């Protein structure tokens, strides 16, 4: 490919194609009379990592499969790499890489044979050995697929998505089931894809994954986009109040707090919570008050709403069965559980990591 063709849009490509890789307006899809995607808009720009988040059953997988060309739509305008994915050809397929939610590899072939096989499908494939190296499977290249671990299989899946040197890569929950070190390795791989100039459409259950990788985030709940933005500003996160929390010193009551604090202080689980617009001013007053009582605030925490807090807040409001409950745990983290039919359970561990898993009957649908 010449430099000019790499930089300039194709002759029939519009100006929009140069900037927007995915363009969706009013996308609709129903199953059996129930609308699961209710007229959504999406824009993914060239070269960005776009995270698409949402609970199970929110219409996430349906939307992604429409963009990938696997499902038909009932209404709306969809353009992916300047083509309608409902009618695409081999040339379009060569420009798109896919990591599907679950895929078992042929166990009989070695890593190198399988990557070589897929390389043969594409007009301008990447170097196979280099791609195997990129996903960290160089020392496994002559192993049969049957001998790989779950995390290694997923990395092989990523290698197969990249071997055609695509412009756009769909990664559908690429790190589900990974242990923490495998996930961080996968993040490095995804970050390196961005450096290669790829556009990444990422779906994930992990908020820290979106926080670490995404340039922009969209949240879908009950078939509608409820928020879009950067991980830092999503849902007004940058403008949200700080949460100051501490245990009352012995012998002190909420009423003894300085007036401007006692008005907004709330006692929950034996701790005082203060939602502060100006945290430095509140802390200054609080410090004076504590020292005045001859004590310190040994377990003081100052928190800002995490991406996960925002996500849970936004998706709980739109939960169709109202089954999502969220509450603050004593550690200042957040635990959320959804009733058994809802499928999503997420909790923040003491180390700040997030684990989420699906209940056996709550598999991703729609």
């Amino acid at each position, binding site marked *: 490919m010449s430099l000019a063709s790499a930089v300039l849009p194709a002759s029939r490509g519009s100006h929009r194609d140069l900037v927007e890789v995915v363009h969706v307006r009013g996308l609709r899809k129903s199953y059996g009379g129930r609308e699961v995607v209710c007229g959504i808009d999406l824009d993914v720009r060239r070269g960005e990592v776009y995270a698409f988040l949402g609970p199970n059953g929110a219409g996430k997988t349906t939307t992604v499969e429409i963009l*990938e060309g*696997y499902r038909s739509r009932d209404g709306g305008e969809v353009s992916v790499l300047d083509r309608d994915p409902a009618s695409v050809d*081999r*040339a379009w397929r060569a420009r798109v890489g896919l990591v599907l939610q679950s*895929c078992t590899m042929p166990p*009989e072939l070695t890593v190198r044979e399988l990557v070589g096989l*897929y390389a*043969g499908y*594409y007009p301008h494939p990447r170097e196979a050995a280099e791609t195997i190296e990129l996903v960290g499977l160089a020392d496994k290249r002559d192993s049969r697929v049957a001998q790989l671990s779950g995390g290694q299989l997923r990395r092989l899946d990523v290698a197969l998505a990249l071997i055609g040197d695509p412009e756009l890569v769909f990664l559908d929950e690429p790190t589900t089931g990974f242990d923490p070190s495998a996930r961080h390795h996968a993040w490095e791989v995804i970050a390196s894809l961005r450096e290669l100039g790829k556009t990444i459409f990422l779906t994930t259950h992990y908020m820290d994954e979106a926080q670490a990788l995404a340039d922009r985030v969209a949240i879908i709940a009950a078939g509608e986009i409820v928020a879009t933005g950067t991980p830092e500003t999503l849902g007004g996160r940058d403008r949200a109040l700080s949460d100051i929390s501490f245990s009352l010193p012995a012998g002190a009551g909420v009423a003894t707090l300085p007036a401007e604090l006692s008005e907004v202080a709330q006692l929950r689980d034996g701790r005082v919570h203060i939602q502060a617009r100006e945290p430095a001013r509140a802390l200054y007053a609080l410090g004076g008050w504590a020292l005045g009582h001859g004590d310190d605030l040994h377990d003081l925490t100052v928190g800002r709403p995490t991406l996960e807090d925002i996500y849970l807040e936004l998706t709980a409001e739109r939960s169709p069965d109202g089954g999502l409950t969220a509450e603050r745990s004593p550690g200042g983290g957040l635990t959320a559980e959804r009733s058994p039919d809802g499928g999503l359970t997420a909790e923040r561990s003491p180390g700040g990591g997030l684990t989420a898993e699906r209940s056996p009957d709550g598999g991703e649908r729609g």
Partner: protein
Amino acid sequence: MGGVRLFAHQLRADLLRFWRNPQSRYFTVLLPIVFLVIFAAIFKGRTIVDGKTIPITTFYVPAITTLGIISASFVNVTIAVVTQRESGELKRLRGTPLPASFVISSRAVVGVVVAVVMSALLLTLGWLAYGVSIPSSIVGLTIAVVVGAASFACIAFAFSTRVHTADAAAPATNLAVLPLYFISGVFVPESQIPRFLRDIATVFPIHHLAKALLLPFTRTHGAALAGGDLLIVAAWGIAALLLAARTFQWSPHAAS
């Protein structure tokens, strides 16, 4: 990569996968050989086929070749397609530029290649161990093998849509073919099968493939091509292919 080279690229991988899969090695390659040895050991003497008296081993070589061809094409292709579909592999392949027709036809060609190899193995075994003479019309025999294998591979594509889990593929195919082997002149000569069972068997393609394979062994002159039987087998294959074109599924059943 040009069309022919791309097809060869896919076929090479599919053949390699067939050979490295223990299930296909034992059930498709070893089992028909074991069957021929056992049947030749149990049944002795001569049998009557089409009014001619022939050694029973001359009957069993083409009869077990029928089984070998159907194992290589129908059973093997059904298991491969259902396993690949349910694991999500077919869906993933559909997301690549590899044409869908190549995915399908490469699997069918694997069935035909393995069927030809199995027929040659069984023929050689019959000649060496039981003194069964090689038919003079080797062309007629080869045509019957290829038409049979290709047709049964097409039947496999239609049949695969009725099997919803990878675990069910092997039992379901065996349930379909085993009773027919007994009444279609594969396990026992037709002359020993009751009339009404024979009549049922003539509806299905196994009976006709068995007859077409037997003919070159009983007729020592001419092309020995059972045109009518092969046409019926091919008609089953074409009908199945047309049905499969409308009903074939690429996505796992569990996630539809």
